[in-house]
């Protein structure tokens, strides 16, 4: 077993027993249950849940991840005094947080659906898409959190950067896209907007999800372009590749910072 797997084993069991993870799981459980009770329609419930997932996962993950790494500072020093490679330790810490967070989310969200039975195949696929995208966002924002916490020792600054990054990707970016759309409304902008969407992981997840619901018909010509893009095999491949890049790049940069850092 590599050092990464060993660190993962103990860190994950520490995080899994943490009160915050239990609250996080219960939150998704309660929200999914409530939405299902009110709507009585699996598809509508999933649409509402998509919005919750896209807002909550990035915020909780990036804040929790940053605080977690800062709090573990002294323990990381002790672990680094053992015969362990820094990169393997980083990998173990990363997975030790990202996996329990992903599991907490997936279990919380899926349980109310599974208890009612999925029946409908389209609904099952949409649920699976939502779960996969939620896990991808968890992986991305944990990686960003670790990159931030490895880059600065100033906790307040790190937390500030984390929250700013969340604001940028989840709120301000959409404003920017809307401005672009409004300013260039007379031009054929479907493709540039498509590029903008692919460049932001939260937008990418949002559009991938929206296109699975009927409301995408309301999105007009752009919606049609999106639909033909994201529905195609190419679109799915590019979406997956973009999300994978969003996971890989911050992880590699974070591991490099962590490897060179003075503790």
């Amino acid at each position, binding site marked *: 077993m590599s050092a990464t797997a060993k660190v993962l084993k*103990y860190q994950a*069991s*520490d995080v899994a027993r943490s009160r915050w993870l239990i609250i996080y799981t219960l939150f998704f459980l309660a929200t999914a249950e409530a939405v299902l009770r009110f709507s009585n329609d699996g598809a509508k419930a999933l649409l509402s849940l998509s919005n919750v997932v896209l807002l909550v996962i990035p915020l909780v993950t990036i804040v929790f991840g940053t605080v977690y790494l800062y709090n573990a500072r002294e*323990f990381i020093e002790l672990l*680094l*005094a*053992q*015969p*362990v490679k820094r990169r393997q330790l980083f990998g173990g810490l990363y997975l030790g947080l990202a996996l329990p967070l992903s599991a907490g989310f997936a279990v919380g969200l899926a349980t109310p659906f599974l208890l009612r039975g999925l029946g409908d195949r389209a609904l099952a696929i949409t649920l699976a898409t939502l779960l996969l995208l939620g896990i991808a966002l968890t992986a991305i924002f944990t990686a960003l959190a670790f990159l931030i916490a490895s880059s600065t020792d100033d906790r307040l600054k790190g937390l500030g950067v984390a929250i700013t990054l969340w604001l940028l990707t989840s709120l301000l970016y959409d404003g920017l896209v809307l401005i672009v759309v409004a300013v260039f409304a007379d031009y054929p902008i479907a493709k540039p907007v498509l590029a903008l969407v692919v460049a932001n992981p939260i937008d990418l997840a949002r559009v991938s999800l929206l296109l699975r619901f009927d409301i995408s018909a309301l999105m007009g010509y752009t919606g049609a372009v999106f639909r033909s893009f994201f529905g195609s095999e190419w679109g799915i491949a590019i979406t997956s590749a973009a999300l994978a890049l969003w996971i890989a790049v911050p992880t590699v940069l974070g591991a490099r910072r962590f490897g060179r850092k003075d503790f």
Partner: protein
Amino acid sequence: MIQVRSLWKKFGALDVLRGLELAVGRGRVTAIVGPNGAGKTTLLKTILGLTRPDAGEVVVDGVRVNGDESYRSQIGYMPQLARFPGNLTARELFAMLSDLRGVDPSIALDEELVTAFALEPELAKPIRTLSGGTRQKVNAAAAFLFRPRLLILDEPTAGLDPLSSGVLKAKVLAARDSGCTVVVTSHIMSDLEELADDVVFLSGGQAHYAGSVAELIELTRQVNLERAIAAMMLRGTRPAAA
């Protein structure tokens, strides 16, 4: 056991280590003392490979510290602040360290301190429920667990009651007598006087004195280590300025 050669380290604009030269003898207890900000912790962290020097080198038991981690299997480290994952038990913590070190589970660990501190009943509780002093005992026990050949103790007796502090000091001396090299920092000079064979006086990132405790007391014409160190801090540098 440890050779430090012209070690330089800068944090921002601050020169913490300025060409530090040092040798730590095998099988001896060496105390690192000096005013706050003298570079004690930075020195320990450089020996452990936690901090990388700007220039110079550290050689531990013939191995140059350069990012390869295997030399640390010989080291037991007791950090100043005992903070562990709160939801794990101390038993799990020991198991984690053993796993990471790749220790053969059939080999008996040195749990003398667990017995001496009467820690056994605390080992099954989540660490977050333990008191600060108990955590410090867990911290101490963890450092001795793998029978290291080099012990690095950063303020080991801080937060321990007199009884436990005595237990720990006896353990350090026993480890030394069985051939272990010990490097220790502390601001409690009476503790160091009991423990240390050699003392290194660090100030401004350089070692101003390195030698036996008795010799330092003699050189400064003081009655004990505390007075001797205080005299050196007052004088700024050399023990034999007079």
